[in-house]
């Protein structure tokens, strides 16, 4: 219990750190944001006017405190481009990305953990070698390439899945149908790392004395592998899943562009192209927040998996 509380308390300073980083994105880049937004040939008056309107002329510390408090209250500012509240725009885009991230993660875990276990049970067998080739492809194939292949094969040649757009909100079968190809693109990318970690972690655990004990009890092989071995092998696997989440998110950004889907990825790319700082900052904040939450979940899972961590 204290472990959970400790871990939750740690979340607060991390969050402040993230907000600080997001704040610095705007200010650490050389030159005034005004020149970057308004262009090299903007007049001195228009720059001054821009900076005054956005409060950029105030002392940095004042701006920082302002920024943190408004972020803490969920106020991400207004988009330069549209004048809309950034948070409202993000709320519209977020579900699409969450769908893709979740589906991609599930696929990555199923492929990665599944192949990893099979590989570890019979190392150097045909299945193991196939699994390792798939993992290598997953790790080394960029999403725009694997995405293209999926589009060409299953979208254009076979016509099984639509290749553009994320579907209308509310139409669940349509959303799922449109999710398949991008989710595989994202999931495949991540599955390789997960597979390799599962394989090596399982191989190590399968060599342990307590696995021999489990077999000596007369337990079925599947029980030994899935109950006794996997739970012990799980901590590095969960760690890698947590860590590869960053790669998965960046894969998602690209994949959304490839499949012309709505979502944070496309939103972020547009925001950057338009030098729409509040929108970009808000978006980066939300993405970082997802990363933090995943890390938190990972740490909490450690506690569930290993009594030694829980009791530490």
């Amino acid at each position, binding site marked *: 219990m204290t472990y959970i509380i400790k871990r939750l308390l740690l979340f607060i300073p991390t969050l402040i750190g993230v907000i600080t980083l997001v704040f610095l994105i705007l200010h650490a880049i050389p030159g005034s944001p005004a020149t970057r937004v308004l262009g090299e040939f903007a007049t001195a008056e228009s720059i001054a006017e821009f900076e005054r309107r956005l409060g950029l002329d105030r002392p940095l510390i004042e701006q920082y405190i302002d920024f943190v408090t408004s972020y803490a209250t969920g106020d991400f500012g207004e988009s330069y481009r549209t004048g809309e509240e950034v948070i409202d725009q993000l709320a519209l885009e977020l579900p699409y990305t969450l769908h893709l991230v979740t589906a991609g993660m599930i696929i990555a875990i199923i492929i990665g953990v599944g192949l990893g276990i099979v590989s570890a049970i019979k190392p150097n067998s045909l299945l193991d070698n196939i699994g390792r080739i798939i993992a290598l492809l997953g790790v080394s194939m960029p999403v725009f390439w694997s995405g293209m292949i999926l589009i060409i094969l299953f979208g254009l040649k076979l016509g099984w899945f639509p290749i553009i757009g994320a579907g209308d909100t509310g139409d669940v079968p349509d959303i799922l149908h449109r999710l398949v190809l991008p989710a595989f693109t994202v999931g495949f990318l991540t599955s390789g790392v997960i597979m390799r970690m599962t394989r090596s972690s399982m191989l190590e655990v399968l060599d*342990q*004395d*307590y696995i*021999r*004990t*489990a*077999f*000596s*009890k*007369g*337990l*079925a092989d599947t029980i030994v592998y899935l109950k*006794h071995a996997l*739970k*012990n092998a799980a901590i590095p696997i969960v760690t890698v899943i947590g860590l590869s989440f960053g790669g998965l998110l960046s894969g998602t950004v690209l994949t959304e562009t490839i499949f012309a889907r709505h979502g944070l990825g496309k939103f972020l790319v547009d925001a950057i192209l338009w030098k729409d700082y509040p929108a970009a900052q808000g978006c980066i904040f939300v993405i970082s927040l997802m990363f933090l939450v995943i890390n938190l979940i990972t740490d909490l899972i450690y506690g569930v*998996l*290993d*009594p*030694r961590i829980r*009791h530490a």
Partner: protein
Amino acid sequence: MHLLQIKNLKTYFYTTDGIGKAVDDVTFSLEKSETLGLVGESGCGKSVTALSVMRLLKEPPARIVNGQILFDGTDLLRRTKKDIKAILGKRISMIFQEPMTSLNPVYTIGDQIAEMLSLHEDLAKKQSWERAVDMLAKVQIPSPEKRAYEYPHQLSGGMRQRAMIAMALACNPEILIADEPTTALDVTVQAQIIDLMMQLKNEFGTAILLITHDLGVVAQTAERIVVMYTGKIVEEAETLAIFEDPKHPYTRGLLQSLPNIGYRSFSRRQPLHEIEGIVPSLYGLPQGCSFHPRCPDVMAICRQTAPKLVDIGDNHNVQCHLYP
């Protein structure tokens, strides 16, 4: 009929160094409710023999190339995997040398014992748990209801070995194979664990194959002793005969390297004595009798031909050219 009979067992390791004959034509049997000591220096094939019976060897590199393991009138080596799994844990169970690592660190000891019971005894969860707690009480773990909820890392080495024994005996097996159950423990704890095993053996009538490299451990417990060297049985006899009248020079060497344990004829003090030389590697065994480079009584024939196991009467078998 013997309870368990191992006949001409050969278990080899196929490695890049060549073929390691870890168990090479081993024959012995275990009777109902008997304690049999299997003794020999490190690397002589005791564990591989036990693991062959339990079918717990990784194949490859190991392979049982020949022999029979007769249990219940049938050859375990010819039974299906499913049959074997029904026997393991239920009728033949095993405890291991390393209590620190032989229990699964992520499950409570209660869970690990109850798992055995719900698997083999068809008990509901609650009953399995209750029986598990009973077993913990039987192995004299204090406050077993509470301890059942603890994880292995919360127990001392001796307590873990007690938990292992509780697990191994949970289904009241006919045979318990104990592979150096006390080697990793403190001397005082060793004696307690051996006492406990003997007490439970009398209560349940379990036959025990007690594997050890320490003749002292089997002196008071085993009825018969099998001595192994480089994968072969060199001597087999009743415990008293082994201690009073050891035949094989290797057995004599083992006895001389034993500190005074208070066994009757051994109470005259002798300086501690080690067998000279080291156990040869399985992958480069000497010609003839594999013990000859270390043997104080070596003869010309020992360097050329390997001796055969001969019965010299009174169920005393010895494999040495001194006894043609």
